[in-house]
């Protein structure tokens, strides 16, 4: 196997084309953001199947969840919103199979595509955002950035072990291009915009 490594690298070195410089991304990163990024985020997320609720504070969210998920397993890993949890995390991710709603914090969100950035420090268990039947995310209004370029500037060199952009519920259009929400992951995604 190490033979293949050397062979591949040698063939590549022998076949290397003329050196080409990396282009600058300044044009994209310095782009002034047009209009209201929060309004844009909400509009885009709704068009891709997400639900958005603008909430003044965490107690309002707690009230909403208690009202809508009565008698179901809810797991919240949001500091200050622990009260909605009915049965917490387990040591084995397979034991999360019956979670109806997972409530997570986000680092920030992106206006141009409705994506929310989450890393392993926010998820409790890496399987949680995917195995839950429904997903609720909390986005601070002030953290919304206009584009993916701004998003990666924000992520920078952070050394998260696992990170993911989530934009809307799990979906598929594999059967005759008919959009169906809830392919394998959450059937719905609700974003609470606060602050």
């Amino acid at each position: 196997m190490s033979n293949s490594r050397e062979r591949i690298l040698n063939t590549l070195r022998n076949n290397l084309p003329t050196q080409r410089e990396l282009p600058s991304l300044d044009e994209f990163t310095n782009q002034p953001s047009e209009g209201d990024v929060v309004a844009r985020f909400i509009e885009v997320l709704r068009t891709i199947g997400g639900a958005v609720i603008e909430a003044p504070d965490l107690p309002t969210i707690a009230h909403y969840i208690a009202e809508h998920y009565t008698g179901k397993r809810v797991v919240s890993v949001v500091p200050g919103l622990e009260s909605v949890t009915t049965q917490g995390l387990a040591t084995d991710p397979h034991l999360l199979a019956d979670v109806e709603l997972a409530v997570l914090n986000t680092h920030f969100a992106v206006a141009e595509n409705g994506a929310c950035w989450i890393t392993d420090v926010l998820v409790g268990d890496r399987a949680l955002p995917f195995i839950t039947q429904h997903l609720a995310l909390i986005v601070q209004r002030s953290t919304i950035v206009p584009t993916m370029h701004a998003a990666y500037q924000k992520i920078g060199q952070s050394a998260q072990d696992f990170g993911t952009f989530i934009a809307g519920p799990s979906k598929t259009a594999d059967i005759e291009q008919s959009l169906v929400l809830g392919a394998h992951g959450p059937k719905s995604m609700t974003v609470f915009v606060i602050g």
Partner: protein
Amino acid sequence: MNEQATFKDHATLADKFNADEPRVNWHDKTLWFIREKRDRAAWQLAEWETLRETASKIKDNVLSNLPTYLEQFEAQAKANGVTVHWAADAAEHNAIVHSIIKKQGVTRIVKSKSMLTEECHMNEYLAKQGIDVIDTDLGERIVQLAGEPPSHIVLPCIHWKKEEIGQLFHEHLGTPKGMADPQFLTAAAREHLRERFLTSPIAITGVNFAVAETGEVVVCTNEGNADLGVQLADVHIACMGIEKLIPQRQHLGVFLRLLTRSATGQPITTYSSHFRKPRVGQEMHIVLVDNGRSTRLGSDDFRNALKCIRCGACMNTCPVYRRSGGHSYHYAIAGPIGSILAPGLDMKKHADLPFASTLCGSCSNVCPVKIDIHDQLYKWRQVLAKEGHVSSTKKIGMQGMAAVLSRPGVYNIAGAAGRWFMKHLPFVVNNRLNPWYKQREMPAVPKQAFREWYKENRKK
């Protein structure tokens, strides 16, 4: 099975697909609809063309530093606790994957979409070793249940009608007979596959982008099947071609903006997951596969095909793909991009593919990394002719055309003769021996050639 004896070329397979005309029209329209969605998404960004140009330039830089980036990536990934494997070809890739599975002692695993594993025919290989690979992407699961390969890299069962999927699910998953509602069928597949996710200790994924700077791999799905598989498994195997490298994390901003807008017209996939380190107690493997890529790097004419990010935009726009279907390309990657990739692996077997094109150039116009696809199709034709891989019918036709077009006198006579025959004895040209008449009506014959008309009218 004797592959030679059963081999059918693009034209023969397209004939089969074209036998059902309403179906061809439906297939054509469905893909054009996706092309239009791509246009609307692209037009929303004023900087779209600059993004394409930038992506293309980033890939130029990657290709001119590939060994360095691969070593950097490997070092970073290892530091992250990931095991990195190198495979020279498909056989070695399959053997590596098998050895990892064997060590775990399991016989059933889940896999999310990976065109590389299709290219390597990994599922078939593992099946022979007694390992059942469950494709978890809905479209891939549908074609897998039907015993077919995907017909499109992004939309694997775009050629299937919902009634047929309903029948397939009735047979395999026990859904009620006659049930063809996409919502209902998707829910049935969700239940069926969730059980597989919950019981598979190994998950294989493809890789959309691998970042040299950080050693992380990025996997994009709408369904969440890659994530669900990986996060419930003890072992994650990520398989990638060596060309998937990008230099730095910030470059993901460019590629993630382009990928899904080009593919389906969405602003981004639902999930864009960055796997840097396995979770505590989990094993993570990355298999780096060459399979002809390092050789292609040395070709000025065909190198750019290595820039491909597998969005499928060239297929959706291609008039030949839309009307001949993905399976007529008899290669893991269909359409224009497949037609320039396949001959690089086996020139003789795929000699027909570069001819499955009108050279209209629409593929190059939509390509998010600006691969000169139609130019490469044209260049492949010349290589194939030189190497003697062109059919005699085509060769005689071309020689005849060259003889006529290079002699104006002969051209005039031939033109007049052609018009006379088509008008008075159409069966001389419109018969089964002339492949141009298949699925095609010729226009009405003009009374005179343009040259004659011009001569008459110049003085007026």
